[in-house]
C-alpha cells in the first residue's frame, strides 16, 4: 500500500510541473505585458517596474524562480493588478469559502445521490424507481448556472425566504441555495451510476447464493452488494470534486459568495495573470490529490486490485 501511494505521489510531480510550465509559458506569450495600459508608462518607469517583478530576467530563470517559489514556499508571487496584495492573500481569502460550500455540496450530492440510486435499484420498475430516474434525468440537464437563477427566482423573489446572495461568514441561510445549485446535477449523476451498478450487482450470482442461504435483504445489501456497487461511484467521485470547484465559479458569480471562483473570473477579466495561474495550479493540485484518494479508496474496496 505504502509503495503504491509513493508511486502515485511521484507520478504527480511531472503532472504538476507540466501544468506550472504550461501556464507560465501561456502567461508569458500573452500579447501585452501586465503593465501595458491605455496610457503607456515612460520606458524608464516600465523598466523599473519590470525589474521589481523580475520580468526582465531571462525566461528560463523566471520559470525556475516561479517553480521554486511555488514548490518550496507555496508562493505564487504578487498580483499584477492589486499592487499591495499577493496571490496567496487573494487565494487565502476566497479558498476557505469555496472549500466550505464545496465540501457541503459534495457530501450532500454523495449522500442523496447514493440514497436515491439505491432506492431506485431496490424498487426497480415501481413508481419510486421512475420518480428517482425522472429526477436524475431532469437534474442532469439543469446545470448550476441554470439552477442558480431559478432558485433565486423562487426562494428570494417570490417566497422571500432566503437571502439572494452574500456569504455572511457561512451562516446557513446563505449556504442553502449555493449548495442546492452546486450539488443537484452531481447528485443526479451519482444516483444514475449507483442505480445501474447496484442493479448489476443484485443480479449477480453471489447475491443469489446469499439469498439462497437465507440472508435477510438488509444483510445482503449492506454486507455483500453495497461494496462492489460503490466502485463505479467512487471512480466518478474524483473528477467530481474538481468539477465542483469549477462550478463554484458560477456560484460565486451568481450568489456573490466571494469564493475562489470570483477571484478567478475577476482576474480573468482584469488580465491578472499571476492570480489566474495561482488558482489554476491550486486546482491542479487538488485534482491530483483527489485522484490519489480515489485510487486508494478503489484499491482498498476492490479485492481484485492487489497492491
Amino acid at each position: 500500500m505504502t509503495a503504491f501511494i509513493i508511486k502515485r505521489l511521484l507520478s504527480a510531480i511531472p503532472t504538476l510541473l507540466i501544468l506550472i510550465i504550461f501556464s507560465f509559458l501561456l502567461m508569458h506569450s500573452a500579447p501585452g505585458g501586465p503593465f501595458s495600459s491605455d496610457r503607456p508608462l515612460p520606458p524608464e518607469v516600465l523598466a523599473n517596474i519590470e525589474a521589481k517583478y523580475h520580468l526582465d530576467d531571462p525566461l528560463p530563470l523566471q520559470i525556475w524562480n516561479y517553480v521554486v517559489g511555488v514548490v518550496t514556499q507555496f508562493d505564487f508571487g504578487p498580483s499584477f493588478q492589486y499592487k499591495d496584495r499577493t496571490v496567496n492573500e487573494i487565494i487565502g481569502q476566497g479558498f476557505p469559502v469555496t472549500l466550505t460550500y464545496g465540501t457541503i455540496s459534495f457530501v450532500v450530492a454523495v449522500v442523496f445521490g447514493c440514497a436515491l440510486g439505491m432506492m431506485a435499484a431496490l424498487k426497480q420498475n415501481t413508481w419510486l424507481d421512475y420518480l428517482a430516474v425522472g429526477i436524475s434525468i431532469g437534474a442532469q440537464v439543469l446545470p448550476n448556472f441554470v439552477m442558480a437563477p431559478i432558485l433565486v427566482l423562487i426562494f428570494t423573489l417570490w417566497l422571500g425566504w432566503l437571502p439572494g446572495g452574500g456569504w455572511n461568514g457561512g451562516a446557513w441561510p446563505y449556504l442553502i441555495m449555493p449548495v442546492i445549485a452546486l450539488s443537484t446535477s452531481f447528485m443526479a449523476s451519482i444516483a444514475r451510476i449507483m442505480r445501474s451498478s447496484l442493479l448489476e450487482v443484485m443480479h449477480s450470482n453471489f447475491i443469489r447464493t446469499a439469498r439462497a442461504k437465507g440472508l435477510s435483504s438488509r444483510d445482503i445489501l449492506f454486507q455483500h452488494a453495497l461494496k462492489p456497487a460503490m466502485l463505479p461511484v467512487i471512480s466518478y467521485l474524483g473528477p467530481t470534486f474538481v468539477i465542483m470547484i469549477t462550478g463554484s465559479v458560477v456560484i460565486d458569480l451568481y450568489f456573490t459568495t466571494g469564493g475562489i471562483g470570483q477571484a478567478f473570473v475577476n482576474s480573468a477579466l482584469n488580465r491578472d495573470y499571476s492570480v489566474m495561474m495561482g488558482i489554476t495550479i491550486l486546482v491542479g493540485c487538488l485534482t491530483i490529490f483527489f485522484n490519489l484518494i480515489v485510487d486508494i479508496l478503489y484499491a482498498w474496496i476492490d479485492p481484485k486490485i492487489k497492491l
Partner: protein
Amino acid sequence: MSDTTVAELSHEIEGSGQGRSLWQDARRRFLQNRAAVVSLIVMIIIALIAIFGPLFAAWNNEEVDWNVLGDIASMGGPSIENGHYFGVDELGRDLYARVVQGTQVSLMVGVIGSLIAVTFGTLYGATAGYVGGRTDNIMMRLVDILMSIPYMFVLILLLVVFGRSMWLLFVGIGLISWLEMSRIVRGQTLALKSKEYVEAALATGVKHRVIVTRHIIPNLMGIIVIYATLLVPQMILTESFISFLGLGVQEPNTSWGALISEGASTLQYGTYWQLVFPLAFFIVTLFCFFFIGDGLRDALDPKDR
C-alpha cells in the same frame, strides 16, 4: 426484450439466407426505442430552426426596436403582432432572432467540438492500442498526466491570453475532451487486436495501415458514434458555462449560455421570456442528445445492457 427476440426470429425466417449487418440490426433496435426516435425528430426540428429560422424572423438580430425599448417589461413580451415571437431582450433586440442565432452557435460548438475530440481521441487511442508496448505505455501515461489538469481553468486562461475568438473556443473545447475518448478507443483496440480475423489478416500479409482502416476502425465505429453523441451535450454545456461567465462568444454573436445569462440577470424586472425561451431550447436539446445517445448505446452495444 422478449418481443424483440420474436421479431428477430420472424425476421430471420423471412430473410433466411440473407445476412444482416450490425448497422441494419442497430437501426432496427434504435427505431424501436421510442424516446430516442422522438428525441431524434425533435432534434431535427431544432436543427431546421437553426438553419431556416432566420427566414421567418420579422426582425434582424441586431436591429433595435425603438418602440418597445422604453418599456420592455410591459411591452417587450412575446407577441405575434409586432413580430417579436419570443419578445425582445433588454436592448430591444428581437429575441427570436437572437435565439436562432444562439442555437446556431451552440449546436455548432457541440458538433465541431465533438468532431475534434472524437477524431483526435480515436486516432490517438487507436494508435496507442494497435502499436502497443512501450509506445502505448508512454502515450497513455501522457493521457494520465493531462487528465489531472483542470481544463476549464486552462481553457479560460487560453481565452484570456489569446483573446476571445469563437474558433479558439470551438477548438479549445474540442481539444480538452479527447482524453476520455482516447482511453475508450485504446481499450477497444487492444481487444480487437487479438481477434482471429486480425491475426488472419496479418498472416496473409496485409499491411498494418490496411488492417487499421479495414478491420480496427470499422469495428470501433459503434462506440465512436455513441460517445460522439454523448459528447455533444457536454460541449454545449461547457460553452454555455463559459459564455455564462461572460468569457465565451462576444456580441453581436451569442449562444444559449450567453442568452441564459442575460435572461437570468434581468429576471428581477419581470422579463421572464428572456430566460424561458433560450432555456427551453437548451434543456430540450440536452434531453434529446441524452436520449439519442442512450438509444444508440442500446442499439449498437446490446451486450452492454
